[in-house]
């Protein structure tokens, strides 16, 4: 076998910034997730939920149901005021999609991040023009992309569908805050879920420990919060429940808070989420090293 490496030509162009190189990490991550047939079951659940909302919005706007029937349908499906066109429906939709995303991430975390540490694949990244910050940001953005594809994008599509079906631009103009709120709320969900899952996966690496810990964070903490709240009645125990924190921050984004107490709780929830994510980021930066030093 003769080797002729004269075909490698000298590169005369500008190499792209390492931050742009990080987009390759996002591409690889999406490829890995969407290649796994088992993940498609969870993705299909999210898609199904979106299609149900899509169909409901269409039906309520286009089919002339009697008012009582319409209300009963909505109550039976448990969607509440989903198709009212205000923010409530979008908050609820995004929250329900977040549950599905949470399930997906419990398994995808090991694939996308844990495997890099388990297989010691970090040298492939860190021997390139990117450093650990580029790697971390790339992974966070990869998880955020997955979360956004299942929460923000469908919510925006529902918003446009609703306005489209009203046959005028008034809905979009009058409710311009809704897509902004969707994006902001989506950014918060992305930031929280991506930071927590990337950090957990970097330390735990394997599917089972990640799934158990991830579930504990969102299920166990919620149960603990309810138990503690039932003890002394203080609503602030709810701050240890990340789902509740994200829900209140979402309502803050949509301006859906009714009382000062709810507003205060939402502000505290935002601070708690920022603090938790900051701590997770610090732990993550320390974890991302090319060499695992065993003490």
């Amino acid at each position, binding site marked *: *076998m003769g*080797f002729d*490496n004269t*075909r*490698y030509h*000298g*590169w005369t*162009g500008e*190499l*792209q*910034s*390492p931050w*742009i*190189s990080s*987009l*390759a*990490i996002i*591409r*690889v991550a999406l*490829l*890995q997730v969407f*290649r*796994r047939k088992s993940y498609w079951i969870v993705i299909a659940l999210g898609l199904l939920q979106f299609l149900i909302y899509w169909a409901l919005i269409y039906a309520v706007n286009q089919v002339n149901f009697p008012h009582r029937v319409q209300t009963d349908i909505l109550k039976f499906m448990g969607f509440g005021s989903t198709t009212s066109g205000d923010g409530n429906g979008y908050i609820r939709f995004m929250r329900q999609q977040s549950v599905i995303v949470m399930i997906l991430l419990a398994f995808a975390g090991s694939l996308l991040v844990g*495997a890099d540490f388990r*297989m*010691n*694949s*970090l*040298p*492939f*990244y*860190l*021997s*390139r*023009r*990117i*450093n650990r910050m580029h790697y971390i940001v790339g992974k966070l953005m990869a998880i955020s992309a997955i979360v956004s594809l299942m929460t923000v994008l469908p919510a925006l599509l529902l918003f446009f569908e609703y306005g489209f079906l009203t046959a005028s631009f008034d809905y979009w103009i009058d409710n311009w805050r809704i897509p902004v709120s969707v994006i902001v709320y989506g950014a918060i969900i992305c930031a929280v879920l991506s930071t927590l899952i990337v950090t957990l996966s970097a330390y735990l690496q394997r599917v089972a420990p990640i799934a158990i810990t991830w579930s504990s964070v969102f299920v166990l903490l919620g149960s603990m919060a309810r138990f503690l709240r039932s003890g002394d009645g203080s609503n602030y125990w709810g701050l240890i429940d990340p789902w509740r924190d994200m829900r209140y921050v979402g309502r803050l984004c949509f301006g859906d808070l009714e009382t000062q107490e709810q507003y205060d709780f939402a502000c505290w929830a935002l601070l708690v989420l920022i603090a938790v994510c900051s701590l997770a980021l610090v732990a993550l930066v320390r974890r991302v090293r*090319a*060499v695992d*030093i065993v*003490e």
Partner: protein
Amino acid sequence: MLLSFDHVTKLYGPVVGVNDMSCRIGPGITGLLGANGAGKSTMMKLASGQLRVTSGSVTLGEHDAWSSAAKRCFGFSPDINSFYEEMTGREFVYAMTRLYGYTAREARERSEQALVDVGMIDRADRHIAGCSHGMRQRIKLAQALVNDPPILLLDEPMNGIDPGGRRDIGELLIAQASKGKTILVSSHILVEVEHLADSILMIARGRIVASGTLSDVRNLIDDQPFTVQLVVEPSRRMASLLLAFDEVNSVEVRGDTLTVRTRKPAQFFARVGELVMRDAIVVHKMVSLDTGADAVFGYLEQGAP
């Protein structure tokens, strides 16, 4: 391009990775030899900017190894066997190429060329999960070659590759070296390094114990006797004749086999020739037992601080 280590020390807490290591690695193939835990991987990771030195400096040309500019100067093939099982070889090499900052089109061309060079172009669409160990080694080598770097850092590149594949990879590395590239090959397959490398760097316990060509290194070990095995008839007569020579340290006799230790191999071989002609000794076999890298390394490791 020169790869330089200047008084480099790397500590992992109380554990010494490398200790006051200084060397210059220039164009050509340099074999990096050492036992497990000697510091080979630490050296590779320091050179590839994955670890920061505790003291001293590592430079690639004029760039500090930790800098972004240095990372354009080398290709690194780590000693890892499992990675991204769902991806095909082509997708993996392409993704790694994009991380350098090339445009999509340029990355595509370079990754295809690298796959041709390592002999994986006809199997590039196979998922890595279905690749053999040797195929994975080739894919790793391909991702190290894509940016046509002046320095190649290869950690155990021949591991798991069949003899034909090793020959091909060896030819590839020799062709790369002939273009003036600096290639550092870390290996436990000492025989392969012996035949491939222009020079050897031996490390033990975090220190360089020897550097140069293998024969240079062997010659440095003047306090280690040279061992030769002969199968002769009559063996006992030959043994008594050899013991009369000053340059022979010892002779061990087992049947027709003599194991001779000598400090002056050139003189010894000349003496053996004279004895064979003069005393009608029949020599069935004569072989040097420790000119290979294994033996040299064994001597040096024993002497390492």
